[in-house]
């Protein structure tokens, strides 16, 4: 659909389809109908920090799962890691740490699989310009049914791992301050072991699709939402990728270290957040570089860029090929997120296999405690990137302060950059084509943002395109989604 409107104008796309929750894209044109600025508005509800004040600290790892129905395990574990320190129990028993890691790799597996098979594969298999009514998972199910089933079954396997380690699918209670409340019985372990080779096979297949697509389209993708940036993630003491625990490392666009092996209890010395009037979401940045130069990427691409090695053999081989074929680390191509994500998918499957064969999972020493603290930070590499939980607890065990920086917030500026880059490349004049809308979605989707802090309910899922003039007057509106087209 073409929309011709007088300039200056704003073109508003709301919400973005096939991205979690709700978002809105505004493209602001100048008087010459060139892109002046593009903004991704994310409706992030920021009341949680207040909601949790006054609650007993031991409830927090369960309560925080109410933040997000997409990644409750990540919030559960990040909060538990903070509360470990509150009770002086951060040196977990082997059983506790391995149960948590199993939970986390299960989460990583299911989240990455779901994102790739069901959000991304339609774009890669059918092309960005394919009809949106077929460029979706139902279209994949009809044309590539085996692939679609693999996505579902990978997701289901990861969910079952979560259920076995967290106790239940929603409001899991597995991680508690200082440890876990259960181990993994032999019978459950054997059930997972029975299927793990199949999971690995499917993971290798997914990695191949992402790798082949990226290599085949490398030239085009290099000009699509690509820009230099800093990268931040947790890193193990020896420089290896570690998705559950480590210290903070930041590198610049050329790979030079900005800071390294920083204890995340001191994250406020390195990271700050900026508020901008047009967005509910904050804009984090590296303090030493300031808000203009210090913004950074997190998530699979950043993790592949920051780490020196991956400690599972197949994922490490894939990482080396990734670095070699994309011109050496760090890679700054937004669409390379998909390949990086599938390397992590395989890494998670390898980790799950190793853990399932570890008898520590059947141990009975589950909880440790030590000297009580009043303040603590918990960090984890969630599927979408680094997740910060920071709490202060009073002598009555009540939470009195809470600050969260969620993964999607960390990627706020990069997502805006990606949208603007695509808008500059594909929007000319005032004509908003389906191709442009699709490409904006594709660019944002590379970051796998989770916008589900907004509630959702029947009747709320649609893509709405609004044209608004600079005075805020609505000039045009188009809605798409929910199974039907609506105006």
């Amino acid at each position: 659909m073409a929309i011709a409107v007088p300039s200056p104008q704003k073109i508003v796309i709301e919400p973005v389809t096939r991205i979690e929750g709700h978002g809105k894209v505004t493209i602001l044109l100048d008087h010459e109908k060139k892109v002046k600025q593009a903004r991704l508005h994310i409706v992030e509800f920021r009341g949680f920090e207040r909601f949790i004040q006054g609650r007993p600290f031991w409830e927090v790892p369960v309560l925080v799962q109410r933040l997000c129905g997409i990644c409750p395990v990540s919030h559960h574990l990040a909060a538990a890691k903070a509360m470990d320190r509150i009770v002086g129990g951060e040196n977990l028993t082997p059983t506790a740490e391995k149960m948590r890691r199993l939970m986390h790799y299960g989460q990583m597996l299911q989240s990455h699989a779901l994102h790739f098979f069901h959000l991304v594969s339609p774009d890669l298999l059918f092309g960005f310009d394919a009809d949106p009514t077929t460029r979706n998972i139902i279209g994949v199910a009809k044309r590539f049914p085996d692939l679609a089933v693999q996505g579902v079954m990978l997701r289901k396997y990861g969910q079952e791992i979560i259920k076995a380690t967290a106790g239940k699918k929603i409001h899991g209670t597995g991680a508690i301050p200082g440890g876990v409340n259960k181990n993994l019985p032999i019978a459950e372990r054997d059930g997972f072991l029975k299927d793990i080779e199949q999971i690995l096979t499917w993971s290798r297949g997914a990695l191949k699709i992402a790798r082949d697509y990226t290599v085949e389209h490398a030239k085009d993708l290099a000009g699509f939402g690509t820009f230099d940036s800093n990268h931040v993630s947790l890193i193990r003491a020896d420089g290896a990728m570690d998705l559950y625990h480590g210290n903070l490392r930041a590198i610049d666009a050329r790979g030079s270290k900005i800071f390294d092996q920083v204890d995340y209890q001191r994250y406020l010395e390195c990271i700050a957040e900026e508020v901008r009037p047009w967005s509910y979401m904050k804009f984090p940045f590296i303090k030493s570089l300031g808000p203009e130069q210090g913004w950074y990427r997190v998530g699979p691409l950043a993790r592949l860029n920051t780490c020196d090695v991956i400690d599972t053999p197949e994922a490490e081989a894939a990482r080396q090929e990734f670095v070699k074929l994309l011109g050496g680390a760090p890679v700054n191509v937004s669409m390379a997120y998909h390949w990086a994500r599938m390397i992590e998918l395989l890494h998670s499957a390898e980790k799950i296999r190793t853990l399932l064969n570890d008898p520590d999972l059947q141990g009975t020493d589950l909880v440790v405690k030590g000297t009580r603290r009043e303040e603590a930070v918990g960090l984890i590499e969630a599927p979408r990137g680094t997740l910060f939980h920071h709490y202060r607890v009073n002598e009555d065990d009540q939470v009195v302060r809470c600050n969260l920086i969620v993964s999607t917030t960390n990627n706020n500026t990069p997502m805006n950059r990606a949208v603007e880059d695509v808008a500059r490349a594909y929007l000319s004049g005032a004509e908003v084509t389906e191709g442009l809308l699709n490409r904006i979605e594709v660019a944002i989707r590379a970051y796998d943002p989770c916008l589900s802090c907004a509630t959702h309910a029947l009747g709320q899922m649609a893509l709405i395109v609004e044209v608004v003039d600079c005075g805020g007057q609505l000039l045009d509106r188009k809605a798409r989604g929910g199974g039907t087209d609506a105006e």
Partner: protein
Amino acid sequence: MPNRMLFIGYGNPGRLDDGLGPACAAAIEQMHIPGVTVDADYQLTVETAATAAQHQVVVFADASVAGPEPFFFRAVEPAASTGFSTHVIEPEALMAMTRDLFRAETKGYAIGIRGYEFNAFGETLSAKAQENLAAALRFLVPVLRDSSFNVALTKGAGELPAEARNRS
């Protein structure tokens, strides 16, 4: 032979009336209706299609933002949707996956219970939402027990069975 019925309530119980679906599922679960498997989640996800395919009927319960009061009840026909995000999918898309991926002939129905308060954190339902939930349960229980979906579909939201009208 597939199981008789899957009842799944979804929504975020930490977001006030968004928790209507899980609250409905919890209430149904306590009734131990024969042949009814009850599940609850934050939202529908793709693997729910695999579970749905193992049942003859799936009933979705969710909060409704702007639907009729106290609730609506309708059949869910399989349909592709350009509007769903696949960490969160709509009942129609889920039924399409059940049919196209798992070759199942599962029938789908949805009950949308009207809620009012969504934009805050909190673990309680609003008073009006609680009333609507009670009405929905009075309507649902005989329908689930008897599989009387065709009869249920003939009732508009304002034409509830006697059991649903008889509020205390």
